[in-house]
């Protein structure tokens, strides 16, 4: 990720060590262990080589933490991605009440065939369905995270709204 100061070092026999200097100037250490656990460390201000406080996480806690930090970031990250590829755009298309596709499957929209767009995630309240399959159901209120060309996205938006 550009602009983020993240340093990665192998810790032989243990795992991988990451060190991140945040933009606010704080130093964060993360050790991801081979067995799946992790340690998150805050460094001593007087001796920035030394971890002053360490959180020890077992593999399940690591998963839980990753989910907390990861899910809301997903849609954001696609927006970032589309910014880097010229001509590729992303959009969030809401399946509104009364849409012909509410209660049907994603495959029924034939989004890719008709508009060339890819639905990369379905956001449903606090949940995210990443890389949804054609058989996944759509409900009123779902938000589709879609990438494609500007024209394709517009066409899909109209299609989901039942205007075509």
């Amino acid at each position, binding site marked *: 990720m550009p602009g983020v100061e993240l340093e990665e*070092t*192998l*810790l*032989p*026999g*243990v795992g991988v*060590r990451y*060190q991140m200097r945040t933009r606010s100037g704080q130093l964060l*250490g*993360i*050790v991801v*262990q*081979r*067995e799946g656990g992790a*340690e*998150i*460390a805050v*460094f001593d*201000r*007087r*001796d*920035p*080589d*030394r*971890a002053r406080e*360490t959180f020890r996480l077992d593999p399940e806690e690591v998963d839980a933490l990753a989910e907390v930090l990861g899910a809301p970031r997903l849609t954001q990250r696609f927006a970032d991605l589309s910014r880097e590829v010229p001509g590729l755009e992303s959009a969030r298309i809401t399946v509104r009440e009364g849409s012909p596709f509410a209660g049907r499957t994603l495959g029924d929209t034939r989004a890719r065939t008709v508009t060339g767009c890819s639905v990369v995630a379905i956001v449903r309240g606090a949940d995210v369905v990443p890389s949804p399959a054609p058989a996944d159901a759509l409900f009123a209120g779902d938000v589709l995270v879609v990438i494609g060309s500007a024209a394709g996205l517009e066409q899909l938006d109209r299609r989901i709204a039942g205007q075509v």
Partner: protein
Amino acid sequence: MDHVAALLVELGLLFLGLSLLGLLARRLGLSPVPFILLAALALGEGGLVPVENAAPFLEAAAEIGVVLLLLTLGLEFSATELFASFRRHAPSGLVDLVLNGPPGFVAGLLLGLPWQGALALGGVTYISSSGIVARLLGDLGRLANRETPAVLSVLVLEDLAMALFLPLLVVALAGDGPAQAAGGIALAVGAVLLVLLAAQRHGHRLGRLLSHDDDEQVMLRLIGLTLLVAGAAQAMGASAAVGAFLVGLALPASFAERARAILGPLRDLFAATFFVAFGLATDPGAILPVLPAALALAAVTTVTKIATGWFAARRDGVAVPGRLRAGTALVARGEFSIVIAGLAVTAGLPAVGPVATGYVLVLAVTGPVLTRFVEPLSARLVRAPAAA
């Protein structure tokens, strides 16, 4: 009591005793190895209580203990980690070797050992205990510290050096003429390099051959293969330890993690019996006369290890307190020093045993204690942040 009953009772008491010693060691934040050695010294030849019935079993189990110790040493680090450490820290590894091997070698010669014995003693003083150090770093919450990659890299490079040193030592201990020794060493180095290269290319096949959904199958296949190779190596005049080490190196990283988990408890059991057997075979009366020498050697090689850690951590841009932490963390010597000494003793150089025992007893305890105390001490070395 009949023989079987006496054997079982002796072993039962022994393992219960080991459990208590382990508890005590953990409570003190130390490795159980020096405690086991001390207890075994008190029991064995010339000690307080002779262990007669269990001795033959312990000797056989000790051989398996060495094999499993070396197998897990080979499993500990992946080839990727090895090459990465070598690229980044080759000079640190060299400093480590140059500073910590020669003191043992010179001390051996001064003590009147033949050069092969001195070579073994050089190995004893060279190799830090990766078991003690890795555990210590975790216990002290230092894994995230900036000096830790340097410390672990030094350990990995010692591991690599062991792969070359062990065959070399075994050939030297066999005691043929210099020409045969040179030939044997070339052969051994060639074998190690061949295994490392073959592991890069074909290690995954070996992994596939050994892997199975069932843990029991994996354990039996792995131990079977390892004992077979170790036995073959021993029969060819190399050491069983070397064979086992090569098996560990050859296994791919993907398989190594599972193998470590499965072998862990078994390794701990047999390794403990190895330390017991080594302690039993060492006459405690023979340690006292060489204790001053062992202490002096310990003092010198404490300084040289601190210098090694200092150098390695400085390469990574770590400040003075971190360099001190790195140096003191490396001071502990333990299981592999005993393995090396054990090779020399079985090759007919019993004089290496008492020196190495005294030496390891001292450093397996003072190393961890030193690095604990250096932390608050070195904190005083850094100035308080300027009042904002």
